[in-house]
């Protein structure tokens, strides 16, 4: 009995930040639930955590949530995959061939800085509201972080390594495969962290615009019929997915390339 508090306080001391954060989140949801004892509750515009949880269970049991997520996941991953496959080699060539870098850098910067989402209505008209349109929106948003990061990764490579491969009779192919590709990897993963966020934007924009299924469409559909509890359930699901993806990539970065976090 006497050791109980000290163990507990030891645990709190060690995981102070996690405990405080968890407590704040719990407090937030409790306050949200409790506030409707004081304030009148209008189910058309606001909902409470208990109703959101019920809505979430409802969506899971009916299978709607997983269906919408699966529909959204396809263009998301296809677009990201295409962005890696095209973006990384382009960025590597831009970093390796100085003149190509000079030529393409301003162009890419303009594309990266411009809100390409603005082309979404056009892409939807071109390619339709289905998979191709969404995939292309995702790709066009997600490709630039890969290009720029791969380019920066190649430029950061120690020239000595390249010279060694050259002296030992390696060709340009060996330079790319044996030196540049491995050195670009951490940069690519850092780029992926940024690209994932942009890809999510792409999926949502595509689905808000014109779609008949998908998680983005589910959110607008529930907003249209004032089903606020189910809309919140979908929004929270998207938040959880976004956090899992970005924090997952961050974790992968830390575990695979700890030296990049040494400073």
């Amino acid at each position: 009995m006497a050791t109980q508090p000290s163990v507990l306080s030891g645990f709190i001391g060690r995981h102070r930040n996690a405990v405080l954060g968890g407590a704040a989140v719990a407090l937030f949801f409790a306050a949200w639930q409790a506030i409707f004892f004081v304030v009148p509750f209008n189910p058309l515009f606001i909902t409470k955590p208990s109703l959101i949880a019920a809505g979430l269970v409802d969506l899971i049991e009916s299978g709607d949530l997983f269906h919408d997520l699966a529909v959204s996941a396809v263009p998301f991953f296809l677009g990201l995959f295409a962005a890696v496959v095209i973006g990384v080699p382009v960025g590597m060539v831009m970093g390796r061939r100085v003149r190509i870098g000079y030529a393409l850098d301003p162009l890419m910067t303009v594309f990266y800085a411009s809100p390409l989402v603005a082309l979404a209505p056009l892409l939807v008209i071109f390619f339709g509201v289905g998979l191709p349109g969404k995939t292309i929106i995702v790709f066009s948003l997600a490709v630039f972080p890969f290009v720029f990061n791969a380019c920066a990764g190649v430029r950061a490579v120690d020239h000595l390594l390249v010279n060694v491969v050259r002296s030992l009779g390696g060709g340009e192919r060996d330079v790319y495969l044996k030196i540049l590709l491995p050195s670009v990897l951490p940069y690519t993963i850092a780029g992926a962290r940024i690209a994932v966020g942009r890809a999510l934007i792409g999926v949502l924009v595509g689905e808000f615009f014109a779609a008949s299924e998908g998680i983005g469409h589910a959110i607008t559909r529930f907003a249209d019929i004032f089903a606020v509890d189910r809309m919140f359930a979908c929004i929270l699901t998207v938040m959880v997915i976004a956090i899992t993806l970005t924090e997952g990539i961050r974790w992968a970065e830390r575990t695979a390339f700890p030296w990049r976090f040494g400073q």
Partner: protein
Amino acid sequence: MAEMQTLDLELSATSGTLPATASRQRIESIALGTAAIVLLLLIWELVPHFLPIKQGTRLFFTVPSRIFETLWEMFATGSIWAPLGVSAAAFAIGLALAIAAGLPLGILLGRSKTLNAMLDPFVTAFNATPRLVFLPLLMLWLGIGMWSKIAIVFLGAVFPLLINTHEGVRNADKVLINVVRSFGASEWDVARLVVLPNSLPFIVVGLRLAIGRAILGVVVAEFFGAQDGLGVVMVRAASSFNVDIVFAGLIIFAGLSLIMTGLVRLFEERTSRWRPQRAANE
């Protein structure tokens, strides 16, 4: 943090070059960069002359000369100013609110470990989530129009500012803080004299990112829930196959984004010129 990534990359991208060849390289880079853009526009312009374009595709097809003509017309007749003004107002108000909220909150979180630990889950969650997901909700709450636009701009811009301010405050020199404290400074004095000047470069980077996010917010909000603004003009044009206007709008948004981030970058270089650690990097 995602925001700091760009800072690293820019620093690592500046490779060491000898001063003698530096100016020649600069000229070469500008010439090649311009040439690539001109070449792309030229090819695009010439495509319809070489490739037969089907009647159906022609509806959606345009060439740069027509886009620039449309752009010129929009400015010449002045039809652009009203929607652009609406968009600019939403952008400016949203960004101003984001600065007003993000800076103090960032300083507060940087100074208080407890508060930071408590709010960190929320900041991480909102920063990882595309703010776009809240748009239907904001439209439900605030209605279609100015306020939902301002809200989405605010949500987009506030987190880069908050996170970068927080990072800057945390990097403030502890010795300086202790010195100022020893001379009897209050928490407010510490913030004003040491913390704020020290975190300025971080804040400016945050501002640059916030501008990009804010423009994205304006565009997206106007696409889905607004009655006027440049984005609305673009969506209407797209649905009536007026492709020129869509591209003209994109050029205006992109131009504004490049000009504003360029100005911030200039300010960044101006204000951080005296910093020894900055000089060491260059």
